[in-house]
């Protein structure tokens, strides 16, 4: 039986390549956070707006590990809560679940492509509008709720889906320049095939 107080093996110094990968990952994640904050910025203008942080969080979920996806979901969700005057955390819960789900999809089933990203962003945006409609109007039988759906929630979701295109173009250089050659999906596939 092994002793519990075994000495840990001496920490091996990282190779140059590993150090570079860590540095790149750090820069990429820091820039991703900055970009999601920049996406939140125009949402403070008021009026009917696309919810820019939804495509940004989904785009991050496409390329990053799950923990970072959750963080992106929390930041993006809080951004929507502040801009729309919703109770703090309501959209964050939704976006964390969406981001985790999207991350799992891209890890397990889907290939990383723009069209998949676009469809998933649209699904998230329309689903959010549906939930807002349900919880803010339908359950309370608010008079004139159909106008809220037609004039505010539906166009907002459509604009959010459309906003996926410029957001993708903003995040594209990050994933192209600062991601390791072997991506997580490919590494998972290699691990699955050879283990």
């Amino acid at each position, binding site marked *: 039986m092994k002793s519990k107080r075994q000495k840990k093996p001496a920490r091996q110094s990282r190779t140059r390549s590993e150090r570079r990968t860590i540095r790149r990952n750090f820069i990429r994640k820091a820039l991703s956070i900055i970009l999601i*904050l920049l996406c*939140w*910025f*125009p*949402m*403070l*203008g*008021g*009026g*009917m*707006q696309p*919810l820019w942080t939804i495509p940004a969080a989904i785009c991050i979920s496409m390329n990053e590990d*799950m*923990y970072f996806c*959750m963080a992106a979901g*929390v930041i993006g*969700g*809080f951004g929507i809560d*502040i*801009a*729309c*005057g919703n*109770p*703090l*955390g*309501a959209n*964050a*819960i939704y976006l*964390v*679940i969406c981001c*985790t789900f999207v991350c*799992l999809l891209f*890890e*397990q089933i889907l290939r990383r492509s723009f069209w998949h990203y676009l469809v998933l962003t649209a699904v998230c945006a329309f689903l959010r509008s549906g939930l807002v409609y349900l919880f803010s*109007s339908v359950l309370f039988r*608010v*008079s*004139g*709720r*159909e*106008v*809220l759906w037609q*004039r*505010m*929630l539906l166009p*907002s979701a459509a604009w959010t889906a459309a906003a996926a295109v410029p957001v993708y173009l903003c995040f594209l250089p990050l994933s192209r320049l600062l991601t390791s050659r072997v991506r997580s999906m490919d590494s*998972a596939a290699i691990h699955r095939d050879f283990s």
Partner: protein
Amino acid sequence: MNLNAFFRSAKFRVLLCVLALLTGIMLYSIRSGAQTDRFTRVLHAVTAPFRHAASAISGEVNERLDTYYEAKAYREENARLREQNAILNQQLIGYDDAIHERDALRDQLGIKEKLADSVLSEPCKVLMPLTNDMTGSFQIDMGEEDGITLNAPVICSAGLVGVVTELSPHYATVTTILSPELSVGAVVLETGDSGIIEGDLKYAADGRTKMIYLDEDSTVKPHDLVITAGTTGLFPYGWPIGNVTETGIESTSLAQYAVVEPTVDLSELDTVTVLLDFKGKGESFGEK
């Protein structure tokens, strides 16, 4: 990694922890009601410079874009205003009479006297309209520490804007009279009919609100002026709310309703004033 492995992994437990934490924050936020909770306060404090900057930039950009995109609308409006100007010129003959009538109405309303007894806040800047909100609710740059109180009426020179519904130390959220969440006792100046101003999303989309519970035999007609009734002690008496644009009978009852166009253009607000104290505040009709 299959899905079963995911449900057993540390990632799934972390996800559950994050969701539990966020649910806690949300419930705390909802429980705090109108008083902004600590998390939101911290976030507001941290994001304040961004919101100020975003407000300034979006205002500037909107103004510039508006000039180009709305050029056609402005041209049409210009033509309409020219026609209106011609009609008004025709009506100038009765101008003096109108002035006398206006003074009489003002005296009748007693607005000046009431304002003399009122305590007004400093002019508050409209900081940030809420995104994707049909009722035009917005935040102002003054809060609890500037003497703003919850449920205080918010006005501007043209009339009633809304009510303070959420407070934090340096910010306050104003819910406008277009919102279904707000009820204001109102009276039609010309006929004396009383009712309740309560927003309806159907009309809020066009920047209008609704006056409900009017008598079945009410003679309210378009262009009539609706003012605050001041019977609940929440609003001063005689503050303009809007003009009636159409009337009708409620489908669910025999009461009449009137659609009211606010005298204030809520989409063009830059500054507002909070009415901190006024004659009759807190006195409901029965207590007077």
